[in-house]
């Protein structure tokens, strides 16, 4: 990897953040973690990552959805790819993987179900970062 890429991990589950941070750092990424949407927005004002990994259910059931729409509307953040990672699909009668990328509904670049294995997550990140 010529240049170390930055990833912003947003999830309200501290255990998941810790576990994923180790995996990503050991794979050569520089990782910042946020426990809430508010923290994520504040972090993005300081530095722009190359990728955002976002959970759906945080403060509310749809915080992740709202946040990704907000980020895609913002001129400063709209080009940052978003990988949505969540355990929520069982709660909705929708196939998120197929609606991911729909600008008007779920403007994320990819979607993965939790729990996810380290290898699968890393492959998906590589694809999104086009490394």
């Amino acid at each position, binding site marked *: 990897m010529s240049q170390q890429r930055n990833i912003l991990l947003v999830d309200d589950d501290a255990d998941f953040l810790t576990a994923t941070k180790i995996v990503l750092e050991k794979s050569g990424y520089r990782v910042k973690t946020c426990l809430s949407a508010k923290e994520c927005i504040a972090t993005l004002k300081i530095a722009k990552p190359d990728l955002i990994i976002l959970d759906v259910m945080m*403060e509310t059931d749809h915080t992740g959805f709202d946040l990704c729409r907000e980020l895609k509307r913002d001129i400063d953040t709209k080009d940052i790819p978003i990988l949505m990672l969540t355990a929520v699909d069982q709660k909705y009668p929708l196939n998120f993987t197929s609606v991911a990328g729909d600008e008007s509904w779920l403007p994320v670049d990819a979607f993965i179900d939790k729990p996810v294995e380290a290898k699968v997550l890393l492959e998906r990140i590589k694809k999104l970062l086009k490394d």
Partner: protein
Amino acid sequence: MVTKIRKSQRIHARIVVMDSDKEAVHQLMRLLGKEGYKVEAIEQINKMLEKIKNEQIDVLILAVEAWDNRGYELIPTIKKMNRFLPIIVTSADDSIETATRVREQGIFFYAIKPLDIKEIKLALKNALSKKFVSSGEALFIQKEEIQKAFDDEILDLADASKILKLSKPTVSKLVRNGELPASRIGNKWYLIRNQLLEWLRVTAAGNQRNYGTLILETMDEGVAVVDRRLKIVSCNSAYLQALDVPRDQIIGEYCYRVSHRSVVPCDESSCPVRQAFRTKRPVKFMHINYDSEGNEHYCDVIALPMKEKDGKVAHVVEIIRDNTETYNLNRHLNWIRSFFAHECRKTLGPIVMNISALVDENLSASISIERRDKMLLSSLCSLKFLHDMIRNYIISCKYETEKLQCNKKSVYVYKNIFPQIIEEFHPILSKKGMDIETEIKGERPIWCDPDFIKIAFSNLINNAVKYGTAKTKIVCWLKMTDDEFEFNILNEGVGIPHDKLYDIFNRFTRFGKLAISGTGLGLHVVKLIVEMHNGTLKAQSGYLIDNKPITYDEFYANENLYKMKDKNLRKFARFILKIPSGEDTQKMEV
């Protein structure tokens, strides 16, 4: 002729009319006033809502035309303030769209202007009787009025003999033998009209050779026969029960008035009866009906056309199957399933991430031994949470189906159960930098189910760890006397909101951050276990002031303490579990 109302005849029900059409209000007040009703007209919304909030209205007559023709938009707000208030909606608009829109709000009766005063009177009478019965305020109506209201319904033996077309001695014999429902007051027997009619109908059905009627009576579904004018010509008891209306108010009445409380027939596209008349074929619909309290009823409505010899359909048999209970149960089960699945997947997230990283050769090689230990510890903690979540779910389900058995034994709780649980929690406690301080008073065995008590301890400690602040102490106190065993657990942390102290033991109750995974079943299961042991469980919360727990009640009652409310005070949660010690202490120790 103007009927003068004597003071004693005035009906003390508080009726409020709200309509922008002043002429209509005046007319309604005049006509209802003649009938003895005291009616007040209100124009301001705030004033009306204030009265509803303070329960100063018994029936509200609200016009669609009120509030700039948006009167019906007020209904949800009114329902939120007082869901039992009967609302009669009036409208100058006779369109089906308006009728449907208003009806769906769960009103008591819908009437089209110009108003038929007889119809309004009947609606008022029904609304008031329902309100007073449901709210336990029957005494509100003066005794004289109660007597007046029931005068037509109470019959003596002579009246009953006319209705039954039986001689008075025969009726008297039936009454004395207890075959006819009647009450004796002094020397005379009295019967209630509706009870008598119901007895007549059931007896007639039992005696007759018309097996069709007999079969209808045995059905749980409500069945009504409707003619081409959409009037009900016959119905079974289940139909009457479902609508909670006496038989004499149904027969000959339009079906939409009875089932939808509307004066406008339903649109054919949503009415199986009208479709069955037109198509001459059976029609089945899923219908959502609203009762007078605005509750949704999910009904299967089947309309079967009855063809005459000439092939024309003169009647339609309407069968109503109320599936609300099944529908709600299914919806609830789906919700539980998806909620539980989500919590499991969320808890599995860090486990799968950690373990998959540790088994990956490339990744694992770059992770230090110390870090690996932490990853394994984190996975172990998540697995314990997952295990407890599944166990609580199973116990809760078993309790629902009454399959839980409590096998009580004499147990030294403080030395044979409690230390094991603390040991189990060691990894979780060390991960969060927490510690448990224990104080034990008494050395007596307790008569309990050791497995269940273990689960109760485990859930309470789990709760204290989850919602406790990292690097703080959890204080446990076990006290055993000859009367009772008390377990007291206190932790510093997010505390329990004041308004949740009583809800906290309900199933699926969660509060605070969603980040703390769980199904909201742990404390519910503790409560079930305590109930099985005839004990009590109490939650307390408040602030830690100088390291001393002060409950919300103590805090708010003390002026000096209350001054500190805006300071960032530390919070605590405490659970107090008490069960009887039991008398049989001679049995073998477990």
